[in-house]
Structures are given as structure tokens and as C-alpha cells.
């Protein structure tokens, strides 16, 4: 938190690296992640298999890269969806008359209190889990935090004199939202949007870890960790470190970038 200026650059660099690993590298690395080499099962890293092999003898590097692609193609759109939903709901509540705001916020309280795992289990039983449904489900459970933040920010800004001055000059609700509120809360939005990307990657990994996310035979960072943990007694450190570090790195990149942005705007304001 106290790292001056460097944090934004470090966050962006780390984030760029992870995006490149997840979105570009799978198409560059030739090995087939699903090809089995039973004779070479559970081998430590070597020249032939830079990150070793899993218990079925699959190339771990290829698995990690494929898992990254599977994670990012779900997590990134899900974060965008949750962002849009949270922003819309928050603005609606923030601009609504007090009684409607009260109802909307009480509703939000309930949604926030719902254990997201149970919601997911419910929907997972209703619809088959694939990339599209996962994006929708993940988006569905991730928006309330931002909605509350946007609503609170909007309410706080609405009491400020410049809003009154605009109203005195003839501004309506839509104009206020567009010309004033969105503009003042833009830094908060960008910062929290950054955090949400990290959160989506984490949420999807956690779900996959529990078996509810990306479905087999497709692998993801979370499911790779889960399978590795099942055989942890065999000390397969090369199976645990790469996917774990990548999820960790994603969250770290989001934190660093978000904090860097926050500090920059904090100084500008």
C-alpha cells in the first residue's frame, strides 16, 4: 500500500504478462494439453516437459496454458457483465426517490447475504455448465458489491452543492447522471472495475477448485490445483506452484493496478 508510483506500472506489467500467458501463449506452445504419456506420469520438470507431467502423464505446461485460456475467457466477460449490472443497479438506486432506493437496497442486502455457492449450485443443476452459462452465473453473483458502492457514491455526491447548482440551472435526472455523477465517480468505477477482474478470476478458480466451474475434460487453474491437491502426499510441487502462482499473480496485478490508479487520482483531486 505504500509503494509509491511503482505500483501502477508493476500491476500493469504483471497483468499484461498474465493476459499474454493465458490468451496468446496457448496458441504458440505446440504440445497438446490432453495427450497422455502414461509412461512418463508424474515427472518433475525436465527439458521435455518444462513444468513436468501430471498423474496421467499430460504435459503440465500445456495444461497450465490451456487452463489459463479457459479461465480468462470466462472470467473477463463475467467481470464486464458484473460491472455493467452493478453500475446500472447502483445508479438506479442512487437516483431513485428515497422510498424506491430503500426497497432496492433492502433487496441488495438479501442478494449480498445469499451464499453464492448455493445460488450457483441451484443454477448449475438447472442449466448445463459451459462457458456461456458460467459467464452469466459468475456475472450474476458478482455485481452487488459494486452496485452498493455506486449507489452510496451517487447518494453522497448528490448532496453536494454543484449538483444543486446544476439543478438550479435546469438539469434533469438523466443530465445529472451523465454530465455530473458518472464523471465524479469515474475514478471509483475504474479502480473497482480493476479489482473486479481479479475477483472474477479468483471466483472462477475457487468454483473450479470445488468442481463447479470449468467442467472436465477442459481444465482451468482451479481444477488443476484441485487434482494436484488430491495427490499432495506425493509432493507434486510442480503441479501446485504454476496454477497457484498464476491465480495469485492475477489478484496481485489487479490490486497493484487498482491501488496505483487510486493513488494517482487521490493526488490529482
Amino acid at each position, binding site marked *: *500500500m*505504500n*509503494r509509491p508510483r511503482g505500483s501502477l506500472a508493476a500491476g500493469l506489467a504483471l497483468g499484461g504478462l498474465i493476459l499474454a500467458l493465458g490468451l496468446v501463449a496457448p496458441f504458440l506452445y505446440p504440445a497438446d494439453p490432453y495427450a497422455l504419456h502414461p509412461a512418463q506420469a508424474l515427472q518433475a520438470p525436465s527439458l521435455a516437459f518444462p513444468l513436468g507431467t501430471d498423474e496421467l502423464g499430460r504435459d503440465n505446461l500445456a495444461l497450465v496454458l490451456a487452463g489459463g485460456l479457459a479461465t480468462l475467457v470466462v472470467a473477463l466477460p463475467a467481470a464486464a457483465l458484473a460491472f455493467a449490472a452493478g453500475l446500472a443497479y447502483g445508479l438506479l438506486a442512487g437516483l431513485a426517490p428515497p422510498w424506491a432506493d430503500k426497497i432496492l437496497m*433492502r433487496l441488495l*442486502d*438479501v442478494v449480498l*447475504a*445469499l*451464499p453464492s*455457492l*448455493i*445460488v450457483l*449450485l*441451484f443454477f448449475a*443443476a*438447472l442449466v448445463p455448465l459451459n462457458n456461456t452459462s458460467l459467464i452469466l452465473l459468475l456475472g450474476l453473483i458478482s455485481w452487488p458489491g459494486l452496485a452498493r458502492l455506486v449507489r452510496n457514491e451517487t447518494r453522497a455526491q448528490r448532496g453536494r452543492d454543484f449538483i444543486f447548482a446544476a439543478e438550479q440551472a435546469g438539469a434533469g435526472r438523466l443530465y445529472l447522471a451523465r454530465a455530473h455523477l458518472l464523471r465524479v465517480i469515474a475514478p471509483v468505477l475504474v479502480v473497482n472495475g480493476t479489482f473486479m477482474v*481479479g475477483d472474477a478470476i*479468483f471466483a472462477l*478458480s*475457487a468454483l473450479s*477448485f*470445488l468442481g463447479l466451474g470449468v467442467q472436465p475434460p477442459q481444465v482451468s487453474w*482451479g481444477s488443476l*490445483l*484441485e487434482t*494436484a*491437491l488430491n495427490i*499432495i*502426499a506425493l*509432493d507434486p*510441487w510442480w503441479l*501446485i506452484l504454476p496454477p*497457484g*502462482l498464476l*491465480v*495469485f499473480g492475477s*489478484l*496481485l496485478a*489487479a*490490486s*497493484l493496478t487498482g*491501488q496505483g490508479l487510486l493513488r494517482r487520482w487521490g493526488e490529482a483531486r
Partner: protein
Amino acid sequence: MISMILRRAASSSLSVFVLVTLVFFMAHLTPGGPAYSILGQKATLASVAQVNARLGLDQPLLKQYGIWWWHLAHGQLGYSYLLNRPVGALLWSYERNTLVFYSAAITLSTALAILLGLAQGVWFGRWPARLIGAFQLGFYAAPPFFVAAMLVLWFAVQLGWLPASGITDLRSAHPGLGAYAAHLVLPVTTVTLLTVSPLSRYFGEAVHEELGKDYVRTARAKGVGFLRILFAHVLRNALRPLVTMLGLSFPYIFTGGVIVESVFNYPGLGWLMWRSALAQDYPVLIAIVLIIGLLTVIGNLLADLVNGLLDPRASYE
């Protein structure tokens, strides 16, 4: 103050009611059903219908919902379909484990957070605070399953110092307290590492902010020494955000975390909730959700109450 707490308790119980209702219908509308968990996936339709009739699941949903409240009003939480035990007793046997585990972890991380936060607030912007900041950033971003996996890998698998999972040594007939304690070390360390980061960070920022306030300058102008300013003036005012956060994490002391408990195969309430949800063991699942809802409310109220004691202004607002 009291009327405010009553008002908030009333409005929160409404939220809990809506929550429980939602979960009840969601759980019951989920395709499949507990019969398959009991009989296995290859069960015949006839045997499934028989089980459903025995469990009362063939009744209209609204009636089942009414019956659930009727039983609750009489202090009954029902029977677990899967384990065929009263839910109350079942919950308690898992609850004990979670309570020990999480109260140890939260106590430890609160103590650590106060130490780290004080250091961070006092040395704000200088190297000790930056070091703490880097630690916080790292563990703030660390996913719990990764931290848990790494701890198991190092201390249980490679070094063999500590047991990797479970709650006690199953091989010995009369495991001592030592065995329980050894099994707690890794889970407690994991949760402590993960929770101390946000707690200490908010507290550290609060300490820094309070140290910059006018009343601190006033105290200095009276000739009060720095340590006395820190402990007699600043600490109490800076504790408020920490208390609020602890209030928010209050439910976890009782419900634990699904992920950490499942990594360590620790039979706590979070683990039970996950198992019941997968097996569609409705009575257990809904009872746990009810508990989480109530604990959330209680946690918030406790935080308000403590903050009301810390800050005399709160009671007048």
C-alpha cells in the same frame, strides 16, 4: 441507542426471513433430489417415489414450507436425510470444530492486526510501514486454496512436521489434546494469514488518519507524551473500523469457510454446508443458511454496540 438497535434488528430479521425463504425454494426447486443421494444415481423411479413420500417431499411445496416454519416454531430443525440424525445435534457436532478453529484464528489475527496496524500508522510512509504494506498486499491477493496448499506441501508433505488434514489422529484410540492442536496449526495459520491483511490495513490507515487530527495536536500542546497520545487518545478512535470489520466476519467464526475446510478435510460447518448442498440435504442446508443470516445480523449489531461504546457521539445520531 437501544431504539436504534431494535429498529435495525427488526428490519434485519425481515432480510433473514426473505433469505431463508429464497434458499428454501431454490433448494427445493433444484432438479434431482435427496432421494438420489440416499439411494444412488441408479435408483428406480418407484424407490425414489417411496423415499420422497417418507420424507414428505411429495407434498405441495408451500405446505412443506409451512411445515418447516411450524417445526422451527417448536424448536425443531428437522432430520438430516442423509445422515438420519436430528439437524440440531448434527450442527452442534460440526459447530464445535469450527468454533475452536475460527475463534483461535480470529483472535490471533486481531491481535496481530492491532500490532501491525499500530506500527504501520506510527511509521506511515517509512520503511517499517512499507514492509507491512507489502505483506498486506501479498496476502490480500493470495487465494486461500493456494496458501493452504503451499502450507500443506511444505510443513506436512516435505518437512513432515504437521498433519495435513482431518481433525485428529484416527489411528490412535484415545487421541490427546496434542493431536487436536497439531491438526489445528495449518488451518489456523492459513486463516490468520489471510484475515490479518485486510484487518491490519484498515486499522493501520485509521491510526494514521487519527494521528493527523487536530485533537492529537491539542494533546501535544498540553505536553502529553507520544505513547500516551497513542494509547489514551488515538487507539480508541482508530478501533472503530476494525470493530466493524470484525462484526462483518463474525458469521465466519461459526460457519467457517468452505474452501479452507475442504482443503484440510476439516469437519466444520462450512464443510457440512457444502456437503449438504451437494447432496440436497435440505433440512441441514436451510438450517445453516438460517444460522448464517442470524449471525450476520448479530455481528452487525454487536459491531454497532461496541462502536457505540467506543464513540459517545454514535448514540446521539
